[in-house]
């Protein structure tokens, strides 16, 4: 299983790969603030996350689990990994 820190670093790599204008800061894992990201960029982030982590993230989860907050997204992926037993793709 990947640690939450490893998942967070992979999200930073994804952000760079898809050229998000929003830079995911190193201290963002501890922040409660939502990412300052527009809906198109967030959609593209979710697409890549789903593809690379092998998970399907529903609209309900995006809304109810407040996945625009990086800390919540990492926790969600960590938990999904434990449920599916699949480590994220590298």
């Amino acid at each position: 299983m990947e640690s939450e820190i490893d998942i967070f670093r992979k999200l930073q790599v994804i952000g760079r790969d898809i050229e998000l204008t929003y830079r995911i800061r190193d201290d963002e894992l501890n922040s409660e603030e939502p990412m300052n990201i527009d809906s198109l960029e967030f959609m593209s982030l979710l697409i890549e996350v789903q593809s690379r982590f092998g998970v399907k993230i529903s609209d309900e989860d995006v809304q109810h689990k407040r996945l625009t907050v990086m800390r919540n997204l990492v926790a969600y992926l960590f938990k999904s990994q434990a449920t599916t037993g699949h480590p994220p793709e590298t």
Partner: protein
Amino acid sequence: MRYVTSKGTPVGIFAVEYYLPEKVLTSEDIAAVSGLDRSTMETKLGIKSLHVCAEGECASDLAVAASERLFASTGFPRQKVDGVVLCTQNPDYKLPATACLVQDRLRLSKGCMALDINQGCSGYPYGLAVGSSLLSSGICQNVLLIMSETYSKVVSYQDKTVCGLFGDGAASTLLRPASKAGLISFHFGTDGSGFDRLIVPAGGSRIPSNQETQVLTEDCNGNYRSLHHIRMHGRDIFEFMDRVVPASVASALETGGLTMDDVKLFVFHQANKYMLEFLFRKMKIPSDRTIVHMEDIGNTVSASIPIALKRALLQERVQPGDVVVLCGFGVGLSWATTVLRWCDRDDWAVL
């Protein structure tokens, strides 16, 4: 479904022209009405203005104007057209087919076949397949393929998810038999389970028009629309595009015995700038082999590919012999890819 056009008479694109309605909405106009962030519209969607129909201006009007430009620029004798295939999702009337109105208004032969096809953003490759089948089978000799779309009639300008996106426009393409294959291969796909991801719910038989369907209701994000307005689930459409387009393009190229490296230009449905650039980056297609040309017209649905193709031709980015890939995707859900080789002047039979 994959198809290679090696059987029957080879077919090519003889000419393309387009027409945009005169009325223009700028990003400023749209932002003022809808509250849409103007900067997002311009920088992310890549759209600064849209052409929209005036009141009473319909799909047939745009179709006739685009086709008249085609006859004027080519000098092609209109009486020789024996097939009209018109693609629209906003016809002038529920019946008859808009293609019939266009046959009359263009003064085409009464021996002419005329039919409508109801497709959205995948309409151009679908139309090319229908038109080339009519030609390669020998049923027709010269087919006018028209994409004419007027989504402004079903857009709520109080709905920020769509009001800064769709513009109206029409493109007319003349398809003819050629000495060498212009249209090389096709790939098609459909996933009707996503029919409600991009939909105008009311006005058909399922939800007939009545007083209730006309009422504007507010969603949780402050957008207002009635059941006669288009509603789009943006995230699902984005995911759908990401899922189907690379595979469809690869399949059509493989069927045609070609690779990505053989392609001079990729002309994709002009959905929006951000999604296209995301897709091109993922498919590792360099920007000098793509076209994103929607700043002044927005997403013109089925007309977007031929308009972008015509603009690429005007910029001399396509030369005879060049391989071009056209890919459309959207409402349905439906997607289609066409691989073509641009024909030379010598490839056409003497009239």
